């Protein structure tokens, strides 16, 4: 039996979607799926934690669409990237998690319209699969990092296997900060 501790194999870099100061002392990273109800439930918890920790935390989101279980998850992830290509990743990210019952192709275009994106470009990039390689790259980096379901969280580069209610996750983050 070989002991191993699951850890992030792809370090956070400028290609990542990052919320909070780049130089924050602690990083919370999520591999998530826009159609996964558990990720939807985790979304307001993450937002709450971001508010509470302020500038001490940076939050990173990577895609891990479980396409067999969630037929809309892949295109939703690509839609977030397409919004990101127009500088609006996080607005789309929030919107998708807040509208998990509206992730069909037409819904995605409606979300893009609500955000005021260039719709022609958005629709073209979705149709062409422009952002599919990026989503795949996130997925593979997750598999190699020991993602074992969605959401999977990492605190700095260690996989966090605890509960993700506000108290547990906040406690774990504070403990890592204290130990640093």
């Amino acid at each position, binding site marked *: *039996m*070989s002991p*191993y501790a*699951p850890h992030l*194999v792809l370090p956070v870099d400028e290609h990542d979607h990052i919320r909070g100061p780049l130089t924050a002392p602690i990083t919370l990273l999520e591999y998530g*799926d826009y159609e*996964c*109800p*558990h990720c939807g439930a985790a979304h307001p918890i993450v937002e709450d934690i971001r508010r509470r920790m302020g500038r001490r935390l940076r939050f990173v989101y990577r895609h*891990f669409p*479980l*396409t*067999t*279980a*969630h037929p809309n998850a892949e295109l939703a992830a690509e839609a977030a990237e397409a919004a990101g290509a127009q500088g609006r990743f996080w607005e789309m990210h929030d919107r998708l998690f807040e509208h998990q019952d509206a992730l069909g192709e037409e819904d995605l275009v409606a979300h893009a319209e609500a955000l005021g994106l260039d719709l022609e470009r958005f629709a073209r990039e979705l149709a062409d699969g422009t952002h599919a390689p990026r989503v795949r790259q996130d*997925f*593979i980096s997750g*598999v*190699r*990092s*020991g*993602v*074992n*379901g*969605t959401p999977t969280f990492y605190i700095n580069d260690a996989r966090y*296997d605890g509960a993700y209610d506000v108290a547990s996750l906040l406690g774990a983050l504070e403990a890592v900060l204290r130990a640093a």
Partner: protein
Amino acid sequence: MSALPAGTKAPDFSLHTTPDQAVSLHEFRGRRLILAFYPADWSPVCGDQMSLYQEVLPEFQRLRAELLGISVDGVWCHLAFAKDRKLRFPLLSDFEPKGEVARAYGVYHKGSGTSERALFVLDESGTIRWSYVSPIGVNPGADGILEALESLNGGPKS
């Protein structure tokens, strides 16, 4: 009881995957094989271990390995579970006598009457090249399997 370690010849078995179809280990001679023992069908989360492996199946296949899931659930349970989760790899039923194959591999958990979450990677000759038992309640993911398969190739490959 502890899991059979690397270097051990994998014990042969024959288990049902459907009511009228059985799968035997020796049929896989000449091919790489992943045996994924898990406690039970229907764990109540998205992206449970077997659904995750369904997503990663193309990577396993790229590394020339096939995958078998094994639990003590009966064949009808497996069929319903596989249909619900759209799993496209065989689930074997270690049902009668219950857990016999899990015991042979050293991964039967008496307290719960199920197998542990245990992974075995077998090479083309049917020898165990890597084994791992995950802590209770922790889905082990797929990274260890991929590393083990790559080491059979003589090192990481992108």
